[in-house]
């Protein structure tokens, strides 16, 4: 998994909680590199899971809520770090529909070794169905990202979760206009 997910996770914990919580999370997770991550590097995703697990221990908050909150925060960081991905899009639906066709390709161009998740967005009448699937258990992070993008574009949409596809590896989100 790309290093940006790790470095931004530590940054999020430092900003949302405190540098000492982040330090404690890193130390308790007993990571191979002692928590040093560069955004252009690539690391095993289990290290991120280990850090989130320690954060649950430290804060006592549920893991899903933490992951979703991280995703939401990350969407804003993406807008800051990679503004070129957002150029030409006026709404979240168009943006989400382009993730699989355009954004993932751009990521692959920069990082040929990146294993990107599958994010398929389909229009269903007035709704947009977004299907997430990955070998990594980050469905909640994806939920947070989608919510963040809606906020970024200022769209008047609500996200419903299709409960028939539970689990951290796959999820279906239904975006409806309010």
């Amino acid at each position: 998994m790309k290093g940006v997910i790790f470095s931004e996770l530590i940054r999020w914990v430092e900003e949302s909680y405190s540098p000492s919580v982040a330090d404690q999370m890193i130390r308790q997770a007993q990571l191979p590199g002692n928590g040093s991550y560069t955004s252009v590097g690539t690391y095993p995703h289990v290290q991120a899971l280990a850090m989130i697990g320690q954060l649950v221990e430290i804060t006592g908050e549920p893991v899903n809520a933490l992951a979703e909150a991280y995703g939401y925060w990350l969407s804003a960081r993406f807008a800051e770090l990679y503004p070129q991905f957002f150029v030409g899009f006026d709404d979240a639906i168009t943006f989400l529909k382009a993730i699989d066709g355009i954004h993932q390709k751009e990521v692959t161009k920069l990082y040929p070794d990146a294993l990107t998740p599958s994010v398929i967005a389909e229009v269903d009448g007035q709704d947009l169905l977004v299907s997430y699937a990955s070998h990594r258990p980050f469905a909640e992070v994806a939920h947070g990202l989608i919510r963040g993008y809606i906020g970024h574009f200022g769209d008047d949409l609500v996200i419903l979760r299709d409960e028939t596809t539970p689990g951290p590896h796959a999820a279906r989100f239904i975006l409806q206009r309010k």
Partner: protein
Amino acid sequence: MDAAAAMIPEEVEAELALLRRRLARSEAARAEAEALLEVKSRVLAQANEQLKANREHLRIELGQRTRQLLEAQRVAGFGTMIWDAEAFKGEMSPHCQALLGLHGLAAIDGVMSVDGSHPMLDRVVPEERRKVFEFSKRLTIRALELKRSGVAGHKDTSHQVCTTEDCQTCAHMADCDRMLEFRIIGLSDGEPNRMIRALAETSFDEDLGRALVFITVQDITREIEAANEADALRQRDQRRMRELEQLAVELRAAREVAERANAAKTRFLAMMSHDIRTPMNGVIGMLELFDDAGLSESQHEMLQLMRSSGDQLRMLLDDIIDLEQAESGKLTLAAFPLEVGTFLGTSIGFWARAARNKGLTLQLERAAFGYDRPLVEWIVADRYRLRQIIDNLVSNAVKYTKRGGIVVRVGPVAENRFRFEVIDTGIGIPPERRAEIFVDFGQLHTVDVQAGGSGLGLAICRRIVDLMGGTIGVEAGPGGIGSCFWVELPFVEVDGPTAAKQKEEKRLRRFDGGRLRVLVAEDVETNRIVARGMLGKLGCDVDLVTNGEEAVEAVRNGQFDVVLMDMSMPVLDGPEATRRIKAIPGAVSRTPIIALTAYSGRAELAPMMTAGAIGVVKKPIVLEELYRAIRSVCH
């Protein structure tokens, strides 16, 4: 250090430791990022080098392809031009420049005006400049339309963009409209105008965002000239074909006329033959019957001359008929056993009197001709045709020899081939004219005519010999004196009759030795008298009737050994009378019937033979032939 450390509160110490760890993580991350950057930079540098190499390779490749394309254009004899419809700029390939006489003008620009000066239009002959201008204008507008439509079009029609791949309608319409042929001024002083064909395609290049007209240019002067030449040749061929067809029509008409004339000739010959033979029968027959006894020498000579003339007349008539049959392919051969020695002796002997009368000797000799076995005794042959050859050659020899004599030599030349030679001491034949004497009417000179030759005899001999599969020729006689006519014929040997053949005598007898009783049915009185006289001479008893009906009655009531039946008779003709006789119950129906006819063709004889006749005697009746015919059916 210990004093200082003792002064720092625990919280601050913890904060510092935290900061040190964060710093350590940041430095580690930075070092890792720098290492990664280093790797990425190297990769990028290598990629850049590869890119440069690829670009250079592509540049070389492009150069080669461009040169190949230009060379291909030069070899194929066409050039290309790309025209930017918006910028009014164009590029011409070198060969395009050469074809249009615009050397060194690789790029052209400027709005084309039919009235103003433009390097391209200036090369076009003045009367066709408007046509070229309109063509250029039309293509420019279409290319712009394509760009406006925003669709990358491969072809366009007059009104709309077509993006269908391989659209046949579009292709056809475009082909009709995108080609222009025009003349340009000769490429050098004094050179005639050249004909150019331009083929254009408009397109919108989406990548470049340009409205383009792509034009190929070809010099078709030679093509046009060749087409004109081909057209002229085709017209000439058509003219010749018409002439040939006309000629064929005329030839067909001529052939039909010739065929009608030939048919008329055949009919005429048949009629003439019949009509001449009937009175001739009277003359020759009477001469045959005339008793020589008691005549003075001069009377005897006169009688001989009359007989000889009669013979010539008969042979001439036979020759004419035979030649006609040979020409129409009707000459055929019969096949009967023949005793060679007796046959030759009789045939040659026939001419003995004529030779003797001229004071000539006539001898028959056996010869070996390089093959040492004796000639076989019995062969299968057409007696009549073989006799005809011998008669012709021997009679000629007698005819053209004034002094000396004639020798006939006969013998085998191979196992199944024999040769006979007729050698005379006559006037001879010049070597250069020996071939033509076997051609129809191939008489040599007036001497021949004076000697009474028709020019047909040898021609007929050649045709008969050809039919028999043999060869005939002539050379100088021994010592260069006279002529030697020779004939070589294939033969098939057969066994002869077991009983010894009796010496021929011209007396006919019944098998029991009694006199033969012959019925003659003949409507012409002269012929009846001739027949009666000849049959009397042969020792026969003769009954005469004048038509077929009387003949049937006579046969029914009488006991005849043979019937001589004329073909053409009033009341009942020969064929019908023959059929009726053959239909009579009892033994009389087996009475042998010999056709008596002035016709000589096989076709004319056919009705009699079909009706049941088994022999033929032609008029004028020759005693020898009559004798043979009766003997062959009664013995």
